[in-house]
């Protein structure tokens, strides 16, 4: 370069840089508290509606994996459980999960601490500027509660009555989930012990899976599922919907994991959220590919439903720690989740536990793996230990499994859980709801 031009260029450059150099101290400080509040609130709002969209994902996935004669029922259960979760979380759940005053310190929050929002038009002076708006916090957390409940509906499909299931959802979303989640995210005893579950591999997924497992055991398998020592496949009615549902869940998961950063008001935080998005995506992809390869090897053919489950298991696996790992480690964690699903689906059948959509392999088993995998990085604090991770897993699963079992047993005694044999064979849509999902595709 011509030295004659260099000097003027240097002068211009210095002049341009001078203001920022002169105010170097201020340029590197965090943005105003108001900005931080606004961005974090925005994260919760966006993350929240992305997790809401997972409800559509579950609905489509389940509708596609059940037989045509049961689709209306499955869709009804999905929209109903989400709506019930929203109401129960307002009425009692949010208050139990984030106690102002504990009933039993660290273990049990207050009952019926109904949620109310901040007043309209709140000013900066009155807002919790170091966090986010109550409305966005409530909205975001509510979606996680609903996700836990939707895990249960897939397992118990095709033979359960509608209303006993919804009563169970009331108890799960109002009490069981908020209580166990308060132990960690509410600042309870598990978080004091150093347990680490970033977005809920155990709190949401393994817990939902445990509730589903308890239900599947009490409910029993579908008629004709296990005959003469053989497993009878009952293929889903619409794999296009199942695939769409999986992609929708994948999209929603960016909100699920990304929003769990719980802050977006600084350079560090928003960069962390971007790490989380990238790692989450990687884990899903790896889970899908792992299932793709393993089903090809084991069965000589790729099984689409396993690939879909594999992607989801990858997502569940990374959920306990989507921030700390590298992209490569996220790949490994997700891939192992995918392998777990391919192995545990037939395992459940061997145990004669009929899980229609594979929710227990995806959420329960992969959720446990994801929570254990945190020790690979030590978590974003670097302090997670295997012992405490196991403590968290065991205590939460035991609590959810036992309380769910009790509720299922009571419901079975009081209301009955299963439809009659004739109703089950004819399909829940016509028997329970009088409304077919595909009335134009008549039989004969």
């Amino acid at each position, binding site marked *: 370069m011509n030295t004659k031009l260099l000097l003027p260029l240097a002068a211009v450059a210095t002049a341009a840089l001078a203001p920022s150099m002169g105010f170097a101290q201020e340029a590197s400080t965090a943005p105003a508290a108001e900005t931080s509040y606004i961005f974090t609130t925005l994260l919760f709002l966006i993350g929240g509606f992305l997790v809401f969209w997972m409800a559509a994902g579950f609905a489509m996935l389940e509708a596609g994996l059940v037989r045509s004669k049961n689709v209306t029922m499955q869709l009804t259960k999905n929209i109903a459980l989400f709506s019930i979760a929203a109401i129960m979380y307002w009425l009692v759940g949010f208050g139990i999960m984030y106690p102002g005053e504990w009933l039993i310190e660290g273990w049990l929050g207050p009952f019926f601490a109904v949620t109310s929002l901040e007043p309209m038009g709140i000013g900066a002076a009155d807002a919790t500027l170091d966090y986010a708006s109550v409305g966005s916090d409530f909205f975001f957390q509510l979606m996680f509660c609903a996700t836990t409940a939707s895990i249960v509906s897939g397992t118990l499909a095709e033979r359960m009555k509608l209303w006993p299931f919804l009563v169970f959802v009331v108890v799960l979303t109002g009490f069981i989930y908020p209580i166990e989640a308060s132990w960690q995210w509410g600042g309870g005893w598990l978080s004091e012990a150093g347990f680490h579950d970033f977005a809920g591999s155990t709190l949401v997924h393994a817990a939902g899976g445990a509730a589903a497992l308890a239900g599947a055991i009490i409910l029993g398998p579908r008629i*004709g599922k296990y005959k003469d020592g053989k497993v009878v496949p009952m293929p889903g009615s619409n794999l296009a919907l199942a695939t769409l549902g999986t992609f929708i869940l994948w999209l929603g998961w960016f909100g699920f994991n990304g929003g769990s950063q719980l802050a977006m008001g600084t350079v560090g935080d928003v960069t962390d959220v971007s790490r989380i998005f990238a790692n989450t995506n990687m884990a899903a992809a790896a889970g899908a590919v792992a299932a793709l390869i393993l089903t090809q090897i084991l069965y000589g053919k790729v099984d689409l439903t396993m690939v879909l489950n594999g992607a989801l298991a990858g997502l569940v696996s990374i959920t306990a720690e989507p921030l700390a790992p590298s992209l490569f480690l996220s790949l490994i964690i997700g891939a192992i989740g995918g392998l777990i699903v391919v192995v545990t689906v037939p395992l459940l059948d061997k145990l004669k536990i009929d899980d229609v959509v594979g929710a227990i392999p995806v959420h329960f088993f992969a959720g446990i793996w994801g929570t254990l995998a945190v020790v690979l990085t030590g978590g974003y604090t670097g302090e997670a230990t295997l012992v405490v991770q196991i403590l968290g897993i065991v205590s939460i699963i035991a609590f959810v499994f036992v309380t769910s079992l009790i509720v299922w047993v009571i419901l079975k005694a009081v209301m009955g859980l299963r439809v009659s*044999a*004739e109703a*089950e*064979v*004819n399909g829940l849509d*016509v028997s329970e709801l*009088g*409304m077919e999902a595909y009335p134009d595709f*008549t*039989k*004969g």
Partner: protein
Amino acid sequence: MKLIIAAIKPFKLEEVREALTTIGVRGMMVTEIKGFGSQSGHTEIYRGAEYAVNFVPKVKLEIVVSDGMADQVVETIQKTAKTDKIGDGKIFVLDVESAVRVRTGETNDDAV
């Protein structure tokens, strides 16, 4: 040979299939149908409007057997498919003129 046509309740299909294979029936054709007999339909409600559902789902079995087996097949179906409620179905027996096994060309009693 006889062609036995039976309309039965769908949830009885598995039981009937098992009972028939036990007595030596080695093939059958199954179609899902809708129909009515003395079991009338029922009413449903869609978005507040009531409508009549006249046809009820049934399963039709078609089985061709040698003359000697026909009575036993009819009896087995009737005993297994019955639930003592209306809508249990009906069984008809027709004569079959001839039958051929596609793979081997065997005819009549060798084909069923």
